[in-house]
């Protein structure tokens, strides 16, 4: 039953001495089917610092990765998305660290120098922009600076601080000329009394006025100063070109090497992460993990090939510790992955239980189609599903797996559409093969109740099968989710039928006796479990408390049997609501255009789109609700671990 049961797993423990650590790690990481367990808690070394060098190497590699990332970014080299060069585990990261150091220093120096020159150019250009309005003034700059009674500060400051700057200067007479450079920065010229020089400098500083750095010895008219600055900018730009060329040269010569190192570091960092999962025996390492049983022989053969001191222990399924949780691997065809996602959203199946994916593949479209029965709308859904699953729409590729869910729901909707006689909401186009939901409500509701009873019985049967797989015999027979529960449910249905259907011939007394027996079985389930498994006391908290608890649990079982069964009435109710909503669209269309003009068809199209989108969503939610709460909760335990083996061939 490959679709129902997960792949069989075996647990392997590998014991090996330190000299094989890299080979073993590389082997298990590259095979692509070994899932390790973190057993680093196992540590019986004499000296806990014995293999501390491995931890130190791991830490150094993490630092190396950060350095490499920074250097690649500074050289504007994208992080490689594929392996460059031959992959080897780094055993001595100092070699690469030392080699990288000289490259990193060059890159860093280039980067700092480039930024510094850019900053200087920006500064000079800022000064030039500031002086630009005064370029025609044949005025000596030093004359402005060296007045006997006047002190001036020329600079750039945040525009947002100018008003506060003015407020802060209110204690002295001053003139502030401002010229916005951008919405963030403004050029300012502050003129004030020379005897307030210190105050002006301090205040300007606190207002973030960056005084322009025109050296005192710069003399001459403003046009002369501007020309001098323009020449300096040109010189700096020439220096920048040289630095950019050096950067390009460095990038050209070092890209391959840096990318290769990055690949190696990435690979090694993963290997050291795996090593951190290992346990430490007195003189060796211990690795534990899971391998599919059909790969066990290949796996052991490969490990044996590493060396004679590599020892393996295999625990088969029946030898596993009670607390061991084997990972769950189920191979599913692409078409079922969307349905599997619906299951795993609830929970990952436990190793020792049936995977309900295949059942959901049948029941989900069935319930959806019964509630959303329409030949035309179903066809639209099916086509939309096919479009999604074809992956032709780039934006919707991530939803491709759900395309098959939509297609299946659409096809079943079409079948129910034929049964209900409905196409795009038109009820009179053809005669219903089975019934018309609006005209035969009671029959529809009773049918859905019966369908619900079948699904609930199926859930109970699955619960019994799961108990058999777990070898949980007591629960299989006595619990509410076991044979006793199933028989009780059937007997109750029989009793109800015998009361409402005179033709139901099954003797009522037999049913009543069956119900009593089932009740007694369920009430004694815990007692029998304690008896069989030799748990004491037999009656937890005394017989009276045991009886009261069992009574209320039984009461709860009765309530849930009733509520779960009635829950399926919603399937019929939604089928009726769907037909009703379609009628509303028809009435609206008639009101808009009794002569069936263009507006009539516009309303029909929009109404159908609304039903497909809005009601389709509500019906999906209701279907999911029925699956999760009325179906899964009966037999599905979940809580499993997904099989995600190591695979270093991945990016």
């Amino acid at each position, binding site marked *: 039953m490959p679709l129902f049961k997960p792949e069989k797993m075996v647990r392997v423990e590998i014991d090996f001495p330190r000299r094989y650590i890299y080979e073993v790690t590389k082997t298990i990481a590259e095979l692509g089917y070994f899932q390790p367990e973190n057993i680093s808690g196992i540590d019986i070394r004499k000296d806990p610092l014995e293999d501390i060098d491995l931890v130190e190497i791991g830490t150094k590699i993490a630092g190396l990765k*950060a*350095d490499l*990332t*920074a250097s690649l*970014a500074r050289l504007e080299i994208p992080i490689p998305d594929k392996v460059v060069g031959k992959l080897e585990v780094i055993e001595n990261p100092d070699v690469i660290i030392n080699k990288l150091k000289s490259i990193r220093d060059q890159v860093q120096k280039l*980067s*700092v120098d480039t*930024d510094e020159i850019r900053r200087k150019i920006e500064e000079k250009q800022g000064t030039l922009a500031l002086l630009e309005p005064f370029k025609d003034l044949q005025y000596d700059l030093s004359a402005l600076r060296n007045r006997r009674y006047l002190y001036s500060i020329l600079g750039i*400051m*945040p525009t*947002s*601080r100018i008003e*506060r*700057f003015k*407020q*802060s*200067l209110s*204690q002295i007479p001053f003139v502030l000329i401002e010229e916005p450079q951008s919405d*963030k*920065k403004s050029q300012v010229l502050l003129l004030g009394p020379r005897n307030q020089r210190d*105050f002006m400098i*301090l*205040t300007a*500083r*606190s*207002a*973030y006025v*960056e005084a322009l750095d025109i050296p005192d010895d710069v003399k001459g008219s403003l046009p002369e100063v501007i020309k001098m600055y323009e020449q300096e900018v040109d010189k700096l730009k020439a220096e920048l070109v040289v630095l950019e060329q050096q950067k390009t040269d460095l990038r050209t010569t070092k890209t391959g090497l840096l990318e290769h190192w990055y690949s190696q570091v990435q690979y090694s960092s993963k290997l050291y992460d795996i090593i951190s999962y290992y346990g430490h025996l007195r003189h060796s390492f211990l690795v534990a993990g899971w391998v599919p049983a059909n790969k066990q022989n290949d796996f052991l053969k490969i490990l044996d090939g590493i060396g004679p001191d590599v020892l393996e222990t295999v625990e088969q399924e029946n030898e596993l510790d009670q607390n061991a949780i084997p990972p769950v691997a189920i191979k599913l065809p692409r078409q079922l992955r969307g349905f599997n996602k619906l299951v795993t959203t609830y929970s990952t199946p436990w190793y020792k239980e049936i995977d309900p994916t295949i059942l959901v593949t049948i029941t989900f479209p069935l319930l959806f189609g019964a509630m959303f029965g329409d030949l035309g709308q179903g066809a639209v859904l099916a086509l939309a599903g096919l479009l999604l699953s074809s992956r032709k729409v780039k934006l919707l590729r991530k939803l491709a797996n759900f395309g098959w869910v939509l297609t299946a729901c659409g096809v079943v909707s079409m079948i129910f559409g034929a049964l209900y006689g409905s196409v795009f909401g038109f009820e009179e186009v053809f005669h219903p093969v089975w019934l018309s939901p609006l005209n035969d409500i009671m029959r529809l509701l009773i049918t859905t109740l019966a369908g619900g009873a079948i699904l609930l019985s199926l859930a109970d049967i699955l619960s019994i099968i799961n108990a058999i797989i777990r070898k949980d015999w007591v629960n299989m027979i006595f619990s509410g989710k076991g044979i006793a529960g199933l028989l009780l449910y059937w007997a109750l249905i029989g009793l109800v039928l015998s009361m409402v259907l005179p033709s139901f011939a099954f003797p009522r007394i037999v049913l009543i006796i069956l119900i009593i027996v089932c009740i007694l079985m369920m009430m004694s389930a815990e007692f029998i479990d304690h008896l069989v498994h030799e748990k004491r006391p037999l009656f937890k908290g005394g017989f009276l408390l045991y009886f009261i608890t069992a009574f209320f649990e039984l009461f709860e079982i009765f309530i849930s049997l009733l509520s779960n069964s009635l829950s399926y009435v919603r399937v019929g109710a939604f089928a009726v609501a769907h037909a009703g909503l379609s009628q509303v669209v028809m009435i609206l269309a008639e009101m808009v255009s009794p002569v069936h003009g263009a507006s009539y068809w516009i309303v029909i199209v929009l109404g159908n789109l609304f039903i497909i989108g809005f009601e389709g969503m509500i019906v999906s939610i209701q279907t999911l609700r029925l699956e999760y709460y009325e179906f899964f909760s009966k037999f599905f335990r979940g809580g499993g671990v997904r099989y995600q083996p190591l695979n270093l061939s991945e990016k």
Partner: protein
Amino acid sequence: MAGASTYGVVNVKVRSAKAELLSSADFLKLTSCYDIKAIALHLQETIYDKYLTGIDPQTITSQELIRKIRLRIPEKFIVIHNNLQNHNQAFIDLIFSWYELINLKTVLRGIHSSSSWENVQPLLFPLGRFESLPFEMMVASGSIEEAILLLKNTKYYATLMAARYRFLEEESLFPIEVLLDLEYWQKVWLEIDNLPVVDQKTVRPIISRIIERNDLLWAARYRYFFQLNESEIINYTLGIGTKVNDSIIRHIAHGKNLGDLICEIYPNLVEKVPTSVGEGEQLSLWEVELTRHIARLCQSAFLAQPFSLGPSLAYLLLLEYEIQDLVLLIEAKTIDVTRTNYQPYLINQGQN
């Protein structure tokens, strides 16, 4: 009733979220906890349980616990953001970017003290999907100048560049941090004008109180701890709140008692802080008092215009103050501070 349709959903969500704020009884229990294990266990019985799933109260550190409980803030911000219209979303995002600014300052401090990313990261506020600045790369760069260059295409770049020359000259982060704060609050104040009138009416009083509190405390601290003069203090404050103007800031700069000035501005705060304690401690106590004053204003925002941005902003501030109290409690329990010593610094002590 345009407001009702615009704010109906967010109003319901904010009011239900407000009902989830910790009660006085919760705070009483938390203050009675012996250590942070007990605090973690008690928090697991409150709304904070969902943020603490998977933790082991026996081994959790104060840093981890603080980070976990802070997860509630971005979550609530997203809920409110998603239920607001575009113009209000921008404002609420600006309010949330305060946490980004706190992180930015933390990262800059980390770089300045040569800390590693491993040491800086746990101190950062969890921003959830609003995480946008390259903090790890900034720390890896190892220098404030390079870190600033990494922010080239962000809204912080111009501010940082404007303060950069002072950092280079003074080798102190003070000018950078001050300018970041000033620019942020000035921006928030100006953005209020872009809100619909009904929102301006409810949001402006709250933001004004925050800016006034900042101005009062900043001015007093600059005088007391840094001995700055009047003009510097004017430049390092905003003076844009409705009740704290430049004349008050100048009084503080000239050494007038902060408590006397606060009582003149807000008469209902008279005698809230004892004058017998030292000036430094008075400052801390006034900070708490002024924050409580804002918290009370936030509470009253729920009684005023319901269909406006006011209740959303008020709730987010109340949540922030609750988390501040929890952080204070956790830190106090971690280093064994007695209840009498930390109690005066708790802001809310329960909303409900």
